[in-house]
């Protein structure tokens, strides 16, 4: 989590707190994979992981008015997810000691490896599709996108590195995202109506 991502979340959190559900939807779609990955480190069953992910976001939505931005939104929801997983495990194994009050995950927990072959295939196809899409980008677009998404640099920092105006950086990143999305969309199973 870098400062830029935190800034990006600040707008969405503020708008969600003002009652605009679109902003909360955006946060959910942004963090769903990271929350599920975190949950999957302590809960084996993928169905449970999905349920707990939903529980996590619901708890976050209800508690949103109390979120004062002292920490990053991701840190906050990370904590909620850990507590949600702990409650789940307490329900599953009530006699097990849960002295994990520092928010670290249980050393006995294993990442879920119970994904179905279909799910594994789908994620592999996604990864392949993403690699192909990135390789297919123009050099300038690829460099700008990776500096933004992987290295977390600002438009201005990227502009410095690429020796071009920030507006050009913004445009390159946007075009790169469009190209990647066009390649990934059929693989992501949107189900939008």
């Amino acid at each position: 989590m870098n400062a830029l991502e935190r800034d990006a979340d600040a707008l969405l959190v503020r708008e969600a707190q003002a009652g605009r559900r679109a902003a909360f939807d955006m946060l959910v779609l942004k963090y769903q994979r990271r929350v599920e990955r975190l949950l999957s480190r302590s809960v084996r069953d993928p169905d449970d992981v999905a349920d707990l992910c939903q529980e996590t976001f619901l708890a976050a939505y209800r508690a949103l008015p109390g979120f004062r931005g002292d920490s990053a939104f991701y840190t906050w929801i990370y904590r909620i997810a850990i507590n949600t997983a702990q409650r789940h495990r307490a329900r599953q194994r009530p006699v097990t000691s849960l002295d994990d009050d520092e928010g670290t995950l249980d050393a006995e927990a294993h990442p879920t490896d119970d994904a179905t072959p279909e799910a594994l295939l789908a994620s592999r196809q996604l990864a392949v599709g993403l690699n192909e899409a990135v390789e297919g980008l123009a050099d300038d677009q690829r460099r700008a996108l990776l500096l933004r998404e992987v290295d977390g640099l600002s438009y201005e920092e990227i502009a410095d590195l690429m020796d071009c105006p920030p507006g050009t950086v913004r445009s390159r990143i946007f075009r790169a995202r469009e190209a990647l999305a066009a390649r990934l969309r059929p693989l992501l199973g949107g189900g939008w109506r």
Partner: protein
Amino acid sequence: MNASDDALAQALSAVMDGRATPAQWAQVNAAWDRDAALREQWSAWHAGADGLRSAELLRHHRPPQALLEALHAQMPASVVDHPRRRDWFAPFGVAASFVALAVGLVALRPPAVDDPTLASAPFPAPGAQGLGGLSFAQAAAGRTLPGWGGALEPALPAQATPAIIDWGPALAEHGASAPAP
């Protein structure tokens, strides 16, 4: 993609980077519920960004529409952050003080008298009663005080119980992040 779609997508990209202007955010917010392509775009962009950071994250991708529908079905109608009671208590207290002051001043003002004889008669100034002067509430209620050091008015309790205002339970800052007992 037409020009307005392109402008909307650029606004979405600006939101993703935390660079959206208020107008861009308003544009995205207004389109979000009715524009499935916009939601799909947001989801795909973030899935792509996650995949660039870690291929493992792609294993945890779920169809976003089903995820949102399940969430919406259970979400309360609104989480608008209403001001806490404590937040309006201070201004309310100040306003109430001014009202009480105004009522007291009106009650202690000499009456307007047309009769010149009555008008020239001495009128006890409020200060003449010293510490035994009327309280605003008593003046408003038409009560008189006993003399200084005298017995309290029988109708009043010897020690008035301070009013207890129930402000409700304390509002936790991070209620959701606390583990359940």
